[in-house]
Each structure stands twice: as structure tokens, then as C-alpha cells.
């Protein structure tokens, strides 16, 4: 594997991360926001794998499994919250949920 290919993987990872981050900030649909978070997580996963390959270290791939497990758990909780809230108020977006303001 030559240096350009690694640069390409890392660039893809950075682009995915920024897309996810901007999506999280600009979209108001909670479901889309969760998807953006997932996108960011997977962008990080991609860079982990790439670095693991670059440094010839298996730890990079091991961490990805941990991230996947945690992300799955997070999605379970997050989706459950969204489902519960959408049943109560079908047209609610993320900005409507702001009772915890100071």
C-alpha cells in the first residue's frame, strides 16, 4: 500500500466526519441527527482502521469493535427516545425539546 492510498482513506474519513458534524448542526429532525452521529462515528472507525494498517498494529481494529458496540447501544437508547417522543408529538423537531434551558 503506498502513501497516496492512505491519504485517500484518511481524507474520506475527514470528509465523512465533517459531513456528519455539519449535518448534526444544521438539521432539526432528530432521526437525521442520529444518523449524522453514526456517520461521524464510522468516519472515526475508518481512520482507526487506516492508522492500524499504517502502523501495523492490530489495536486499531480492536477499538473499532468497541466503538461499534457502544454505537449500537447508543442507537437503541436514542431511537427509543425518538420513537416515544414522536408518538406524543409527531411533528416535533430537536429545537422544540428545550425544557432544560437555564
Amino acid at each position, binding site marked *: 500500500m503506498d502513501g497516496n492510498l492512505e491519504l485517500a482513506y484518511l481524507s474520506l474519513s475527514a470528509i465523512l466526519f465533517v459531513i456528519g*458534524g455539519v449535518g448534526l448542526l444544521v438539521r432539526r429532525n432528530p432521526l437525521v*441527527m442520529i444518523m449524522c452521529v453514526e456517520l461521524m462515528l464510522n468516519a472515526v472507525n475508518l481512520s482507526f482502521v487506516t492508522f492500524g494498517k499504517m502502523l501495523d498494529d492490530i489495536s486499531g481494529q480492536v477499538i473499532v469493535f468497541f466503538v461499534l458496540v457502544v454505537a449500537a447501544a447508543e442507537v437503541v437508547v436514542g431511537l427509543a427516545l425518538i420513537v416515544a417522543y414522536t408518538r406524543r408529538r409527531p411533528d416535533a423537531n430537536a429545537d422544540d*425539546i428545550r*425544557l432544560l*434551558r*437555564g
Partner: protein
Amino acid sequence: MVELLWLIPALPLAGFVVLLFFGKRIGEPVAGWLGTAAVGAAFLTAIVVFAGLWNEPDHTYELSLFTWIPAGDFHVDIGFLLDPLSMAMVLFITGIATLIHLYSIGYMHGDERFPRFFTYLNLFVFSMLMLVLGDNLVLTFLGWEGVGACSYFLISFWFTKDANATAGKKAFITNRVGDWGFMVGTFIVFFAFGTVTYTQFLPQASGLAQTTATFIAVMMLVGAIGKSAQLPLFIWLPDAMAGPTPVSALIHAATMVTAGVYLLVRLNPILAASADWVPWAIAIVGCATAFVAATIAVAQTDIKKVLAYSTVSQLGYMFLAVGSGGYSAAIFHMITHAFFKACLFLGAGSVIHGMHDQQDMRFMGALRKIMPITAITFMIGWLAISGVIPFSGFWSKDDVLAYALHKNFFLYLFGLIAALFTAFYMSREVFLVFFGKARWGESAEAELANLKAHGVGAGATPLHAGTVGDPDADLGAVTDDEIEHATTVHPHESVWMMTVPLVVLAFFAATAGVLNLPFTENMEFLNRWLEPVIGQYQAHLEESTLQLVVELTISTIVALSGIALAYAVYMKHKVKASKVEHPILFHGWYIDHGVTLFMGGPGRKLFDLAATFDRVVIDGAVNGVGRLTRGGASHLRSIQNGYVRWYALMIGLGTVLILAFILTQVNF
């Protein structure tokens, strides 16, 4: 038997609790008998414990019930220290309290708050016993404050009258000055020794640095001056006479006011370790108080006021004895004084009761035929306090004066002059109340008209009325209302509940001198009994028999000349009474007035300054911190707006900032 010690304070406490909750339901007179029984049982227990104490080593017994305040290594116990000093105190406190409880059943008859009176009295006896029995300074302070609170309750017992409530407040506030001294003294004891238990710190007192010991002694002296009504804090005691007469007898003559003397005697190792001027200061305070109060008593017209100033004066003698190193003499005089002053006060109460609440001696006279028991017992008290041989006051006062002479001739001289005044004003009281012509009743109109025109002595100018502290009050003494009241009075002798205590107290007032006769060492029972507590630091008198006889003769001459002078003025009218009863004396040397002027003028400004400082600086600091916090928070809370996306942005920005910081710090 000595293990029963805890019962002594527990019995009055039980009486207090029962009367507090069920007093109203029990009612008169059972509530009174219950209170009397509680204190009487305590007295009997005290006698049993006394018998048991003989077998204890050094006549000392300690009993610790439980830990009251645990704080690491330091702890304060509810514990009792029974030694010869506290035993002597307990015996006369419970004994006299029992008699006064019995007397009160008769005196308070018909009062609508009859049960409440005995509730307070029992609480007082409990507090007083804690004061003398407590084995540490904190427990003594508990009793010290307890008796102060009871004193306040009882002075203003008839609180519907404004003057009584004011007198209660005055006593309470004046006492606080003394309490401050006691508290500071206790703190220093703790700093110096790490403990406040008497048996732990008193033996170490001789190893104390002189400055520390002096500081403790001075602070405790301030406490004692406040509680025992010495110059300059004596002003509350005469006003305390607003309370019912049994209260004056028990609290403001026999027991509570002697607490200061007890404290100083208890702390005698500290006094011995302090600078030489401390005992001098105590002696001078005592001597000055004895003299000043005795002179004021000469010009009072209220039968109880005379006795009040007399109490202040006699307490001065006790301080004089303590300052001269005569601790046993102080306790001796305390005990005899308790007997004869309680007898005199109860006698005065009997007169007031019989005269339908008349307290003004100008409207009395010739009462000896109507109140024979009161008159005889009162006269025994009079002979005792005047120092006539062989009554108890003669021996104890002479004991005090012997120590004063040992210390310094001038202390002795002023003590003698005060004794002369004592004999004079007490004789004046006896002559005005029990002898002469009746200045009451329907047939006394001529006498009353004469009184209105001339005052008590024939041809004398009008007496000076008006309240103490108000020298501009109308000096034209007797009003028509008072005259009218006097003509409707029908005096009578009191009931047996009141006369029996009088007789018992008069018996002891006459004979208590045998406790400590100065002739041989074997006859000084009290001196030998108190040896374990005070023997080490007691001044040692080495008097020849001749010296003793000369002193006793001088005392007798002084006492008899005081009585003779009063006889000349008030019975034979050789001198106008108004020449003796100078306005300065009537107004108590204007000390009260001076305090009022100072507190109302410059003192008031000082207090205002303190109040302003409190409001601006102290409150300002506290409120400023609060305002700052509130203001800062109201700005900070706008960040917390509730938008999840805003939080996400903040997390992102924060991450970027932290990353940027780390990247600048790390060298690749």
C-alpha cells in the same frame, strides 16, 4: 449512701417537670406542697449523703453520670464533684429552699399563677444545685445561666406591672456582662489546660504562667462581680426586689447571689497562682461595695430596698474575705448571712403581707404588738446582721474582719465603718416598722398628717421620694392617695406556713455561729471541714488571745454604737432624720442615674456606631457576596438555552480548542 448524690438535683428537677406539665391541673395548694416536698426530699437526701461523705477519703466523692459533650479528646461530662465546699453549699441551699418553699405556700396564697411560681422555684433549686455540684466549668455555667434565667422569670413574675418587667430585664442584661467574663475565663482555662474539669486542672494551677492565671482570675472576677452584685454591677439587685418576697429571700439574698463567691473560692488555686494585685482587687471591690451599699441603705424608705442594699453590702464582706485569703471566712459569712438575711426577708414579706402589700416603712410602726412572731424573729435577724454578740453574724463578720486586718489595716477600717452603718440602718428599719407610733389605720390620722407635713422624724423636712435614677422627681414625699391607703389598713399576723420558717431561720440566725468559733482550733469546725479544698492557699492567722479579745470588743462596740445612734435618731428624735437620710444616699450615689446618663448619651452614640458598622460592613459583606453570585449567575444562565444543536456546537468548539492547545504544547 453517698451514691445517692444524683438524687439531690434530680428531685427538684422531677418536681419542676411535673409542675410544668400538670401544675395547672394540680392547682393550689397541692402544687405548692409538691414543690416543697421535692426540695425537702432533696434536703433529706443531702443529709444522708453528708453522713456517707464522712467515710470518703478527703471527704471527696466524684460521680460521673454520662458524657454530655464529646468532641474528640475533649469531653464534658454530666458529673458531680462532692467535696466539703459543695457539701456545705448543698446543705444550706436545700435547707433554706425548703423553708422558703413552705413559706411561699402561705405568701402566694390566692395568686392566680400559684403553680407556676413553684415551677420556677423548683427549676431554680435544680439549677443552683447543678452550679455548686458540677464537676467542671461548663456544667457550673449551665447552672449559672439557669439560676439567672429563673431570677429573670421570678423578678418579673407579676409582669403585668411595667416596673417589674423592666426590673427583670435590667437584672438579665446586667448579668450578661458578668456571664461574658465567666465564658472568656472558661475559654482560657480550656486553652491553658485542655480540660475544664476542676479535679484535673486545679491541681495543675500552681504550674501555670502568672499572666495566664491572672487573666483567668480577672475574667472570673468579672463573672463573680456580675452575679454577686458588686460594684459597679450591683445596680440590678435593688431593682430585683420587684419580685415576690420569697424570691428575694431565696434567690437575691441567700443563694444565687453567693454563686460568685462560690466560684472564687472554688478557683482558689488559680487566684493563688495569679499576680498579687488580683486578690487586692477582689478585696478592694468587696470593701468598697460593703461600704457604699451600707451607706445607701441608710436612706431607703422601702422595707425591701433596705434589705437589698444590705445584701449587696454583706456580699461585699464575702469578697473582702476572699481577697484577704480568708476563704473559710467567706463561706462562713455566706452561710450565716443566708440564715439571717432569709429570716429578715421573710419577716419583711410577712409584714408586707400583713399590711396588704404596703412596702413603705413610713406607713408602718408599732407592729410588734400585732405581729409578735414576725417581730421577734425579725429582731433576732436584726441582732445577727448588726453583729451583736453572740448571734451568728457577729462571729462570721468578725472572722472576715480578722482576715481583712491581716491583709491591710485600711480594709479593716472600712469594714468596721460599713459594720457601723449596717447596725444603724437595720436598727432604723426595726424602729420604723415595729416601734414608735402607728402610722396606719383609722386612728392614725394625726400621725399621718404629721408625716405628710414633716416626714418620719418629728420636725423633719419631708422625705425624698421618687425613683432611683430620677433625681428630678418630686421630692414632696407623701401623696394623699398613699395617706388614704394607709388609713384603711388592718394588719394581721401571718399563717403558720409563714411563721414556722421564720422561727426556724431565726433559730439558726442566732446559733449558726457555733460552726466556726475562733477560740480554739478544735472549735473551728467549718475551717477544718473545708481544709481539703482551701487549706493549701488559705491565709494563716496567728492571733494571740489578747488580739482576738480586742477585736471582738471593738466589733461589739461598733455594733452597739450603730444601734444606739439609730435609737437616738428614730426613737428619741435627737437629730432630724432628714440630716441622716441625705438625698445622695437615697439616690444610691447617683450610680444608677450615671449609668442611665452615660448609656443614653455617649454610650448610645457608641452603640449606634456599632450598629452602623454592623449594617454597612458586616451585612454589606454578606449581602455583597450574595448579590455578586446572583448577578454572575443571571448572565451565565443565558448560555444554557436548551437547544441540543447549540450544545453540540459548543462541544465541537471545545474539542477544537483543546486539540489546538495540546498541539501547541507537544513537540513532534
